[in-house]
């Protein structure tokens, strides 16, 4: 199979991840957010697997596996369970209206493309669009963390950001340590979930709205 085809597939999958990122921003209901996150993770897994196949770098399959099992399945379920266990109300609390969020998101994508495409002219063609896509996914994830109020959505935003990073890593030809990195991130995510759950069972906070959690905010002088 020829090079160009493989690139196109890679870019197709990358674009899917980005679309999933947008759909994350678009959702109004918590469970829908979780589902579209699961979908993004799935797409990421596919991308990783495809890169593993194209660059015939077997260790990337492992990354793909992590993405599939941990992110696409375990984490969404865990969050589902959390939301029900903690009785978090199911609507997404937005700080910025969804319409505006989308517009900003588009602007961010434009920015990253404007930045990356001229830059990577020299770099291996494989990485060209993928990098732009990955960067946009990162920025979108951050945007989500900023514009969504409650903790679950913020965690999801964080994981989306991280998906972008993994996407960039896997599409960087021959980059070592991708596996270790994705494991490290999985640890981070695990800790986040653990933290949320942990605070809850300590009966310290009534809701998971992080803003509420900051009610102290240090140093009242």
């Amino acid at each position, binding site marked *: 199979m020829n090079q160009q085809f493989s690139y196109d597939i890679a870019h197709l999958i990358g674009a899917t991840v980005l679309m999933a990122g947008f759909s994350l921003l678009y959702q109004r209901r918590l469970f829908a957010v979780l589902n579209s996150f699961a979908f993004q993770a799935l797409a990421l897994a596919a991308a990783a697997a495809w890169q593993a196949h194209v660059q015939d770098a077997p260790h990337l399959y492992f990354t793909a596996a992590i993405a599939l099992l941990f992110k696409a399945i375990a984490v969404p379920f865990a969050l589902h369970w959390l939301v029900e266990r903690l009785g978090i109300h199911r609507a997404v609390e937005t700080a910025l209206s969804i319409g505006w969020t989308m517009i900003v998101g588009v602007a961010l994508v434009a920015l990253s493309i*404007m930045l990356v495409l001229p*830059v990577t002219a020299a770099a291996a063609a494989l990485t060209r669009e993928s990098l732009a896509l990955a960067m946009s996914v990162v920025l979108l994830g951050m945007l989500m*963390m*900023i514009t969504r109020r409650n903790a679950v959505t913020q965690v999801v935003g964080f994981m989306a950001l991280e998906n972008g990073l993994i996407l960039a890593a896997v599409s960087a030809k021959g980059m070592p340590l991708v596996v270790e990195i994705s494991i490290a991130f999985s640890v981070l995510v695990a800790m986040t979930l653990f933290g949320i759950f942990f605070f809850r069972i300590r009966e310290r906070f009534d809701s998971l709205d992080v803003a509420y959690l900051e009610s102290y905010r*240090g*140093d009242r002088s």
Partner: protein
Amino acid sequence: MLIAGALLSLPLLALFAVLVGRRDAAHSITYAGCFVASIALLAGGLTYLGGHDASPRLVLPLGLPWLKAHFRIDNLSALFMLMINLGAAAASAFAVGYSQHLPQRRRVTPFFPLFLLAMNLVLMADDAFIFLVSWEFMSLASWLMVVSDHTEEENRKAGNVYLIMAAFGTFCLLPAFGLMAGPGGDFTFDAMRIKDLGLMGGFLVALLAIMGAGSKAGLVPLHAWLPLAHPAAPSHVSALMSGVMTKVALYGMIRILLDLHGTLSWHWGAGLMLVGGITAVMGVLYAVLQDDLKTLLAYSTVENIGVAVIGLGLAIAFKGDGQTELAALALVASLYHMANHSVFKTLLFLGAGAVISATGHRSLTVLGGLLKRMPWTGTAFLVGAAAISALPPLNGFVSEWLILQSLFKGPAMPHWAMKFGVPVVGAFLALAAALAATCFVRAYGIAFLGRPRSTDAAQATEVSFGMRWSMVVLAVLCVVLGVIPVTVTDALSHAVQPLTGVQFAVSADLGWPWLSPVSATRGAYSGTILVMFGLALFAIAIFTVHRLGTQAIRRADPWDCGHPEDIPQTQYTSQSFAQPLRRAFGHTIFQARETVVMPEPGDDAPATHKVTMFDPIWSGLYAPLGRVIGWIADHVNRLQYLTVRGYLLMMFLTLVFMLLVVAVRQQL
């Protein structure tokens, strides 16, 4: 060798004072050691003032690794070493007795030797780094002594203002040196001398040097810390800070402006001269209205610094205009005044210290009649007061006479700014001199004459031997420096010659006792002759009077226009003495307002008289600055209380901003 030994002994003394500070003897021993060390340094300074150009150098592997620490004693340094260590010796001798009944003395004694060390190092430093380190260390050591009596709220405030202003000064000098050293960073003074700063560079260096050294010397409006800090310290330290440390500051100014900074235009001299004039007048106006003796002395320091700076400014102006003869004259005048001030201001502060230790009071309103109870202190203080009031034949007059002489030559410069500026500055100077006399008549008359206004003053007793004699020696020095002016100017001209290029010399056709700058016909002064004739006339007067008339004396109650009151409170107080001046000067400058409340007839409430004044510089410059900082701080402080989301937003915006920057710069 002598100098090195003395310098090394100082930190050891500090250590000693720290370790055994519990014992009374330790303090006396430390101060005695300081006395010996400063005498040694004095001697060292004398040996190097000889004017031989082989000034000793020393390089130690300290400080900046590639720079090392350079030390050098040239004539200027030697001269200032004389001034500094003279005052230091007197203060140390005074402190031997004074420190015994000093509260918190354990917070003073250890830092005193370090203070001396720092001041001497500033004079010997031959590269910018060592200079600034010693300079700042000097502030640090003196700050610790200013806040020694730390339980007093205002002392802590004084400490704050002092240290912050000191840092301001350093942060002015630092860039100045940076500019002179250049990007390469060769910080040795030798390298700076040969460097040619451009027009802009020269401008900045001069400005920063004047601001930096000026803030330490107490030029208006950067003087604010001085009247707070100097009184707060124990008197022997105040004596050093006022009489001596300000000279170190002026040394810095001279070193940078006249030695390192090769290319000064006369404009800077003119500007500096004007600042000096304003400083002199403002300082004395503040001083004449003070009630606290030490605050009064501190403000009078501001005045004298102003006077010295007038001379300095003139010297720079003349030099910039190429008239080196006159430059030498003005510089000699300025240095003469610095030397004088270091003598009599030290004396006066020590006198104040003696008064405090005898009565426990600083406020004039509770003093009075001390001359009869403390004859030595009183007489010494009188000499100091007369000297600082520029009365012949004492030293204060000679230097003011020289400054006026050089000022009168100012219009000889072909610049209209000078032609019109000099007379104005002259008026300032004259006003300052006259007001200084008023100020010290008031201070002395209220504190030492009349009848005691409080029991503490009534029960005052003369201070101990060492304190007494340290004052007397200084008083004698006031007379000597005034009576043999030519000898002094010869000594000074050693230091002046390398800076102005010409040797200052009195005109030969009159000879030794006559101080006649430029030429004999331009006006001359001879303290020696004047004193001889004066004494002769004095003797004649007494003789003839006692010949023609009786010698009978009858002691009686004061007549007081027929209705004497033996209540001491009926005397003029410091406030009432100041009233005419307050009306004449304070009304506009200090917004001085008097409110008198007279009770109705039959009402037995006491009548009250209240004076309200406000400090234009503090409330016009410093207070607003503080308010601005507070306002900004309040608004910045909100950032402490955002939510995680808020912080993420800040992060996000930073990222996007930088990405945009890169995007734009890549397109260009």
